[in-house]
């Protein structure tokens, strides 16, 4: 061992050494506090790291270690061990892993190797372009994403229709006052059509357990079979109110705050009528839900309707005097003054009648840097696809 030329054995030994050092740091210094990386510490660290990598490349002729660091014999062991460490994290799913020294040192060593390889291959040829783009992209994305995480702000803001809100809370429920205020003009939910399912009276589980079935009441669908029950819908109210008559419960069309969905059904099984003209409803904050008991074992119920789309029509005011109207929905955040505003949630107890919308505000000043890295990685991947098969013998 350690006789030149070094091979995978030495590469593995370096990784093992890093793990030992990491374990010792973990025991003495304790876990890494990423908050310490907040601006301007992170930009200094990024510059030092990049500077070290560039200097390392300049010095490569003088140091065998530096030449070795950009070889496959250094790369493969760290890739495999990092993959294993990542998989372990994938099983345990403990967030603490991310501030664990051995885990972070593995990624750091990988990052340094990737940086050195980038410098080494900065030469104009298609194959070098593919290598440079991939490695530079990974180096930039990994470095910026890790160091920049301390500068990222993610805040939750609950907006109501009555007044503008400028306070938002972070993960620790600490209140932040922002340079912008948001007021909710209107909140809308579009829902998927209602459906009927048969449940087990005891467990409440949708049947059949291994492959739950449902009858979706949409367009022209008015009847169908579940578990041998033939269900026929005679009437369907998208917006209904529950009205109690002398001896029964009835539903009438009613389009106001708190309306529920209700279906009038007939149920037969093997020609035998189990229910004729009975109502089933999924309820709302105003009306209780109503199921239909078919027999001792089964009931017919209407589950809560799934939201198809929900959106907040808002007005955003900034301290600099901007006033902008925006519709924010899932997958369609709104950009304003460095913030991305996301639709996060709503008052679920009120369902489609929610008067509140929960927004998430995210500021990530390092995003352009990370996206540059991602862009280079995409170019690298495309070049890799285009050049696959061409480099048959070019593998030293």
């Amino acid at each position: 061992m350690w006789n030149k030329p070094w091979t995978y054995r030495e590469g593995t030994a370096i990784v093992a050494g890093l793990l030992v050092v990491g374990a010792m740091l973990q025991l003495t210094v304790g876990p890494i506090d990423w908050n310490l990386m907040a601006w301007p510490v992170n930009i200094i660290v990024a510059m030092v790291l990049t500077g070290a990598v560039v200097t390392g490349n300049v010095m490569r002729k003088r140091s065998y270690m530096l030449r070795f660091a950009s070889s496959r014999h250094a790369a493969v062991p760290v890739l495999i061990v990092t993959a294993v460490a990542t998989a372990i994290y994938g099983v345990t799913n403990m967030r603490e892993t991310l501030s664990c020294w051995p885990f972070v040192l593995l990624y750091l060593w990988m990052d340094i190797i990737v940086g050195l390889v980038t410098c080494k291959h900065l030469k104009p040829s298609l194959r070098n372009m593919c290598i440079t783009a991939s490695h530079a992209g990974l180096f930039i994305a990994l470095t910026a994403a890790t160091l920049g995480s301390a500068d990222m702000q993610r805040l939750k803001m609950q907006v109501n229709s009555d007044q503008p809100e400028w306070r938002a809370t972070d993960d620790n429920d600490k209140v932040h006052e922002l340079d912008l205020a948001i007021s909710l003009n209107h909140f809308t939910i579009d829902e998927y059509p209602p459906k009927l399912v048969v449940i087990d009276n005891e467990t409440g589980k949708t049947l059949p357990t291994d492959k739950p079935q449902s009858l979706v009441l949409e367009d022209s669908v008015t009847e169908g079979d579940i578990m041998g029950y033939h269900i026929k819908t005679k009437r369907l109210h998208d917006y209904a109110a529950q009205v109690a008559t002398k001896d029964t419960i009835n539903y009438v069309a009613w389009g106001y705050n708190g309306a529920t969905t209700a279906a009038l059904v007939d149920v037969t099984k093997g020609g035998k009528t189990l229910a004729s003209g009975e109502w089933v409803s999924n309820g709302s904050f105003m009306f209780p839900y109503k199921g239909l008991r078919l027999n001792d074992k089964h009931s017919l119920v209407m589950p809560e309707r799934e939201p198809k789309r929900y959106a907040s029509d808002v007005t955003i005011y900034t301290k600099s005097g901007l006033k902008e109207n925006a519709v924010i929905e899932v997958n369609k955040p709104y950009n304003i003054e460095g913030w991305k505003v996301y639709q996060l949630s709503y008052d679920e107890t009120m369902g489609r009648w929610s008067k509140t919308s929960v927004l998430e505000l995210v500021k990530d000043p390092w995003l352009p840097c990370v996206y540059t890295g991602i862009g280079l990685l995409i170019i690298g991947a495309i070049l890799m696809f285009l050049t696959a098969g061409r480099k048959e013998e070019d593998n030293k």
Partner: protein
Amino acid sequence: MIHISWDNFLAFALISVALWALGAYCAWRDSRKAALTSTIAGIAVFMAFIVGLWISLERPPLRTMGETRLWYAFFLPVAGLAVYSRWRYKWILSFSTLMSIVFICVNIFKPDIHNKTLMPALQSPWFAPHVIVYMFCYAIMGAATLMAIAALLGDKIKIKGKSFDGSLIQHPVNNLVNIGLAFMTLGMLMGALWAKEAWGHYWAWDPKETWAAATWLLYLAYIHIGNAPQGTIPRKKYYLLIVAFLCLQMCWWGINYLPSAQAGSVHTYSIS
């Protein structure tokens, strides 16, 4: 208007499989043109079903495991066709057809819940390219893994009395992994860009993302290992390829059964 649903799947699948089998047979008989035509025809029929289902569901069929298996069954013959037309391996079409049949059978005998709803987070232009690119990558990696296993088994496989020479397939396996890895990288990055739009962050160490990273690193390790000398079989490298593919399975569906992921993965849609 014709309404294509899962009820029509059996008919489309039978026609496609018949055409693919014919293509595979023609490949063995060295009728290259017939093999290509028949395979392409089978792919077209299968594609017609996917497009029809897409239209009648009013959303891309990419949500449930059953629907992603559909794409896998589609891309395997596509990958097989690509390999066959480029490197002319007679056996690859039989391989891809057989693998595709497995996925088709799973869909026929153990179908998922097929419903129409698509939660808001999935309603994005990124959805289709992200999953389709990944499915194509899975299919290619599957083909590469099968070739590696065949090479490892070596003389135990007899084709027409002759034992299979595993030492000749090093370059095609490497090429497949390179192409697969290019697609895997694209799929992962598209996922990151989409996640930024949908969930506010491009990388959240969600269990699926974590396993995707581990898988990606293993394939990266594979492509960084040097080639074995001509005429030999790089056994350790192929073992790594098999482990990487197992990791890929974990990422694809294994995590649905992992307690840590069920607790709060944003990626488990089909299990409720």
